[in-house]
């Protein structure tokens, strides 16, 4: 493509030329227009089609996930103590919070659906053929990354279903022979699912996997443009024969129409059926039945349906063969024939695997609805989630306030502690040292201070105050040895 810019633009004096010369100035320095032309001029053999919209649809959804994700991070705190309350805050309090979170949640499902459509289209059209091996492999990597995003994102709200689904998901890894247990511990950051697990999943979901996705999207698009659009099934994938149409305008409009459809569909779903949040994760709940999102159901059922012996076959061999067949497709399927009806074996195996996955998923739902106990428990869980969603938002009590409330509510069992608490409160030590001796701006915290002084030393502090006590205007008190002993016991009892 050649874009010859006029070399002499000094002659232009008409009023419209100012903008044009500014444009030239900018273009000469950035080359953006050339780049734009490069992007929009992509030749499509056989012309634009609605069959080709899925790739850019994925890019669009990814962008939407990226933006909504950043906005969710504005209020979210990734720690076991705060994750659930902050997601509840986003969902129940912040303006448009439920909407944006729902867009993000439903966007994840949409992404999986469109990935499946994109790869099915690529497969059925034979678009992986003709020197497109690396293009296909980069696509399979992106598929795995998208599933990784779905898996890591699921834990972040830290509600019941998030916690237990991740417990099951990480347990699956431990079934892999030899390295399994270690892999599970690595994912969890220890043996149990806790705040370290949440941190790990958060970092994977927010930093590591998105960075890899950006990288592989760039690689994927670059390789795609390098190989060229494959065109319809009647086209030769290496030396296109058919007349080409450029990406702009018709294909671009089709792609944008699809993006618009996605926005409207996701927007309606997010607005009218907002994504729910369940009650806070309770690891002690032994009744909770974990169920993964729909896109992990086939895998879930596969592991459930075949229990007992044959672990190696179930966990390693069968999935391994399917993955190898999937990733290696363009390496062993080397014929240039693209018409599906002329490739019965490839299309047959693909359809069979796809059908098997759908059957497994459907059977999982069927089983759940036909086992009375399971159905009842799942209904209860949905009910609990509905009730939690209806309940008004309850802010989390700050740690200082929690101490004060706890100090007021629980009476100490040790009489010395109780006595010390009484002295501490009646002498208004809390005014400077804070409720529960947590410390304030004007006086230090005294929790556990007993370990720094012996009983006699502690008693002596009130007779011969330390210089910093004098400097801080600490009032003088006259206490008996029993009283200082009680105060010391009380301060030691505080956490």
């Amino acid at each position, binding site marked *: 493509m050649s874009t*010859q*810019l*006029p070399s002499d633009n000094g002659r*232009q004096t*008409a009023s419209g*030329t100012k*903008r*044009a010369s500014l*444009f*030239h100035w900018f*273009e000469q320095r950035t080359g953006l227009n050339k780049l*734009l*032309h490069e992007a*929009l*001029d992509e*030749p499509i053999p056989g*012309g634009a089609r609605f069959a080709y919209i899925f790739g850019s649809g994925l890019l669009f959804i990814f962008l*939407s996930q990226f933006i909504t994700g950043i*906005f969710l991070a*504005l*209020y979210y705190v990734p720690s076991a103590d*705060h994750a659930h*309350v*902050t997601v*509840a*805050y986003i969902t129940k*309090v*912040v*303006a*448009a*919070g439920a*909407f*944006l979170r729902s867009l993000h949640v439903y966007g994840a499902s949409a992404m999986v659906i469109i990935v499946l459509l994109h790869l099915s289209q690529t497969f059925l059209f034979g678009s992986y053929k003709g020197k497109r091996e690396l293009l296909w492999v980069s696509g399979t990597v992106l598929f795995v990354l998208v599933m990784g995003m779905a898996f890591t994102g699921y834990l972040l709200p830290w509600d019941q279903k998030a916690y237990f689904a991740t417990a099951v998901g990480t347990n699956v890894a431990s079934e892999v022979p030899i390295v399994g247990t270690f892999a599970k511990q690595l994912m969890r950051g220890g043996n149990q699912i806790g705040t370290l697990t949440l941190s790990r999943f958060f970092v994977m979901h927010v930093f590591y996997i998105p960075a890899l996705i950006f990288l592989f999207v760039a690689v994927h698009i670059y390789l795609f443009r390098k190989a060229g659009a494959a065109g319809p099934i009647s086209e030769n994938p290496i030396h296109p024969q058919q*007349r080409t*149409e*450029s990406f*702009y*305008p*018709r294909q*671009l*409009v089709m792609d*944008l129409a699809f*993006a*618009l459809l996605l*926005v409207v569909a996701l*927007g309606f779903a997010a607005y009218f059926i907002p994504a729910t949040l369940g009650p806070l994760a309770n690891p002690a709940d032994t009744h909770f039945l974990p169920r993964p999102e729909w896109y992990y159901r086939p895998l879930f059922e596969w592991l459930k349906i075949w229990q007992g012996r044959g672990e190696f076959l179930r966990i390693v061999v069968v999935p391994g063969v399917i993955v190898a067949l999937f990733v290696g497709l363009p390496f062993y399927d080397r014929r240039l024939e693209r018409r599906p009806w002329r490739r019965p074996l490839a299309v047959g195996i693909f359809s069979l695997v796809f059908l098997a996955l759908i059957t497994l998923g459907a059977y999982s739902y069927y089983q759940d609805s036909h086992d009375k106990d399971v159905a009842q428990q799942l209904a209860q869980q949905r009910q609990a989630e509905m009730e939690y969603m209806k309940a008004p*938002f309850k*802010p*989390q*009590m*700050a740690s200082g*306030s929690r101490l*004060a409330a706890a100090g007021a509510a629980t009476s100490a069992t040790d009489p010395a502690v109780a006595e010390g608490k009484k002295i501490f409160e009646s002498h*208004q030590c809390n*005014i*400077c040292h804070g*409720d529960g001796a947590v410390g304030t701006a*004007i006086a230090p915290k005294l929790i556990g201070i007993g370990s720094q002084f012996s009983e006699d030393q502690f008693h002596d502090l009130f007779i011969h105050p330390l210089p910093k006590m004098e400097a801080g*205007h600490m*009032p003088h008190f006259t206490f008996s040895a029993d009283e200082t002993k009680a105060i010391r016991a009380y301060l030691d009892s505080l956490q």
Partner: protein
Amino acid sequence: MEDNSKQGNLEPLQHDSDAFDDKRVLEGRRSFFLWLIAVGAAAMTTLLSAPLVRYVFYPVFAKTTSVSWSNLGKKSKFLSITTPVKQVVEIKQIDGWREEISRKPVYITKGNSKESLDGVQVLSAVCPHLGCEVPWNEAEGKFMCPCHGSVFSPDGSLELGPAERGMDTLPLKAENDDLMARYEYFQALLSYKKQVE
């Protein structure tokens, strides 16, 4: 000139194999598409940015209860008091998804300050000297701070230092015959009352 305008409008998208040969049809079709794309993109951007803006601006316009009025009880109950009545008010401060509750002692006394209501006023129990809680000494009939010995009369005015001003009055209002006070913090060690935000 001709070339220039073309550059700016994405026009020279031509291939030897372009399927569309009729230039005029092509031009018309392209400007229509351009219009469609521009309108579509603008509509989509507006649609999508509205919730984002509302979401980001939420805390700026959200009502916080950091300054709240505490109900002290029926006003009539306090009109005939002879000595200061101590009460604890709870103030709840909302900090995003957190909440802090602190309990603050106040005295309801007779007095005629700027903030009194029908001869009743509410004093913060915090000593204006260094922030200790000032107890009411029944025997002396005065407020006597245990920390540094400041003494205040029953209406809170200063009798003896080291405090440099009398006890601080709190904003007061009556609502349906209930007495409501708003707890505030004041700077210590000043000879005049200055609220701390």
